[in-house]
């Protein structure tokens, strides 16, 4: 893991002291809300429906056991005993008192955490593949580059007041688990014919009220040019991005209005000015950063574990192994997904007790490492296959042994109207009811891979545009309605879901989703044809017919 150096420690502590003073001045009346609001947002403090919300950055979703324990502690002491993992690999506390925030930030700083870049019109916390550093299919660890981007972008003076927020994601495996094509900049690492590492560069993707798949402006950018090229993109955006209309201020609108060819030309021209100068990332520096992300000392093991294979005689474990364990780059190890989607629970929530238990498991069985996924789950990246049956048993004890990763109940949902000041409709209760409707794990297994994503407003924090089944909550004359989109995907075959027809009432939405699922089961060629493939083969018509035919 990346460790703070002297500069990082000093910087974060100074920032905490600065904010402590700002909070004191606000509470004493020395500072007005208008003066204070931009300052609190720069420190991740929002005012939501019920209280202040503190969003804590988890860079590229990587956590240590010590850090997770500290989050559990903060949840217990300063919140209501739980935390909410978000679709940007961060963690939110929903019941925070403003007066407590400086102390919380100080306690976070002790474990090398903060809340910077979790709000405001700056470059936000960089996200990455949640299997980074462990995945069998990655060509490099994308967190190395995410960290280089973090160091470059943190409080970058030129990019602290952009037209709007700016999100970057990095992945380094052919299968894109980081949804890079729906980010302002998406970086998809690959290796060329000469064995050199570089990136396909995607620009102008995003969700929100105007969903767009990014345009590929470079097929192969050498890794040394990473910062120069990103700086070029940001400069074009900072100069040309719209500031007259908040809803047209994201770079996706600039790319759309300018056109792919012209925006590419402009970026390349700016890059030509920057290339080969101060922002070139020297190979030794990449290697230096990479050492922070070196694999832990893993044992030399046989690829096949008899303990693991024998445990599969238990059908529950066999399903867990099939759904929640992914291939590790080191023989004899696996990557374990901890589903934060038990039946009827709010997606992404974990109690302080659960966090502490997971921290203990990670410390003992996963080289002290954890990841947060943008799908609102936790990941144990380095677990011996021999140990996975024990880990499974321990997860079951804390109510988190569900073998539903990637199934229909592995739902992404934003906080929605239950918590969020921007929301128009509730998301979590819809997720909970869907989770209960499809609780039968045999039925989930029969349905197979199916991603449901739910947003409570057009800002799309629940990523509904890229859900195989997307659900958007809207307010219609004071009543909640839910619009269904079909065929979205956030992976390397990225697509924006299509609205299937008029929305459904709160009472009708779960039945409507079940109708979509039943229609899929009837029309699929075989059990090997997943929902998304079937939808892409047959299109919207049979689903529309099933949903709206009288």
């Amino acid at each position, binding site marked *: 893991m990346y460790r703070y150096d002297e500069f990082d420690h000093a910087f974060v502590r100074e920032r905490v002291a600065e904010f402590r003073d700002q909070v004191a001045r606000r509470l004493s009346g020395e500072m007005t*809300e208008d003066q204070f609001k931009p300052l609190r947002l720069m420190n991740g403090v929002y005012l939501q429906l*019920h209280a202040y919300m503190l969003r804590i950055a988890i860079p590229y979703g990587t956590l240590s056991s010590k850090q997770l324990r500290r989050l559990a502690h903060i949840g217990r002491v300063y919140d209501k005993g739980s935390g909410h993992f978000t679709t940007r690999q961060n963690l939110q506390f929903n019941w925070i008192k*403003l007066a407590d925030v400086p102390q919380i930030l100080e306690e976070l700083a002790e474990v090398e955490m903060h809340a910077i870049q979790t709000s405001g019109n700056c470059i936000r916390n960089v996200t990455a593949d949640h299997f980074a550093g462990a995945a069998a299919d990655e060509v490099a660890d994308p967190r190395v580059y995410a960290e280089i981007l973090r160091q470059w972008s943190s409080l970058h003076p030129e990019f602290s007041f952009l037209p709007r927020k700016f999100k970057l994601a990095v992945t380094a495996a052919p299968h894109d688990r980081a949804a890079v094509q729906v980010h302002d900049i998406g970086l998809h690492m690959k290796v060329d014919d000469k064995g050199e590492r570089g990136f396909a560069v995607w620009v102008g993707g995003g969700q929100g009220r105007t969903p767009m798949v990014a345009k590929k402006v470079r097929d192969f950018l050498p890794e040394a040019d990473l910062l120069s090229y990103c700086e070029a993109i940001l400069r074009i955006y900072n100069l040309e991005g719209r500031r007259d209309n908040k809803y047209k201020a994201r770079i996706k609108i600039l790319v759309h209005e300018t056109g792919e060819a012209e925006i590419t030309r402009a970026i390349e021209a700016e890059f030509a000015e920057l290339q080969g100068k101060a922002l070139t990332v020297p190979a030794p520096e990449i290697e230096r950063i990479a050492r922070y992300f070196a694999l832990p000392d893993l044992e030399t093991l046989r690829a096949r574990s008899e303990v693991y294979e024998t445990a599969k005689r238990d059908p529950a474990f066999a399903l867990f192994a099939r759904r929640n364990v992914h291939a590790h780059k080191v023989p004899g190890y696996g990557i374990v997904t901890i589903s934060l989607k038990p039946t009827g*629970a709010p997606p992404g929530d974990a109690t302080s007790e659960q966090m502490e238990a997971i921290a203990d498991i990670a410390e003992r069985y996963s080289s002290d490492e954890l990841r947060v996924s943008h799908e609102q789950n936790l990941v144990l990246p380095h677990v011996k296959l021999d140990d996975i049956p024990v880990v499974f048993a321990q997860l079951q004890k804390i109510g988190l042994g569900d073998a539903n990763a990637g199934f229909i109940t592995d739902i992404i949902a934003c906080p929605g109207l239950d918590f969020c000041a921007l929301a128009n409709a509730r998301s979590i209760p819809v997720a909970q009811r869907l989770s209960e409707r499809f609780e039968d794990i045999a039925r989930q297994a029969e349905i197979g891979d199916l991603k449901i994503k739910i947003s409570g407003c057009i800002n799309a924090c629940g990523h509904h545009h890229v859900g195989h089944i997307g659900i958007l909550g809207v307010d219609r004359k*004071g009543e909640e309605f839910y619009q269904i989109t079909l065929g979205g995907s956030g992976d390397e075959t990225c697509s924006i879901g299509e609205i299937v027809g008029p929305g459904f009432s709160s009472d009708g939405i779960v039945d409507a989703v079940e109708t979509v699922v039943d229609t899929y089961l009837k029309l699929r060629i075989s059990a090997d044809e997943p929902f998304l493939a079937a939808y892409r083969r047959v299109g919207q018509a049979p689903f529309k017919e099933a949903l709206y035919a009288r």
Partner: protein
Amino acid sequence: MAKKKDFHPVAATANDLRSGAVVFREPDGRWGTEARRAEIAETPEDAERLLARAKADHDSCIVVEPVLIEMAEGRPVALRERIRDTGPTAGIGRTA
């Protein structure tokens, strides 16, 4: 302010500056956490006065983001405000 014939009774709500808690202005000028105890303005003129007092409390650093919300039978009319009054409808769910 709405014309008299379109007017519905309103209460003043905000968040407590220090804790962020949802609060409603009560008849004695204190801010409490239950909508049913809120002062209700029955006329546009009373509503204007209520909002002015709420804004004064904002300026005095007692509350933030004060607004008027429609009330009926002692509770907020809009779902959003009912959730603010009574809390999230989604619980933590199954735990260990």
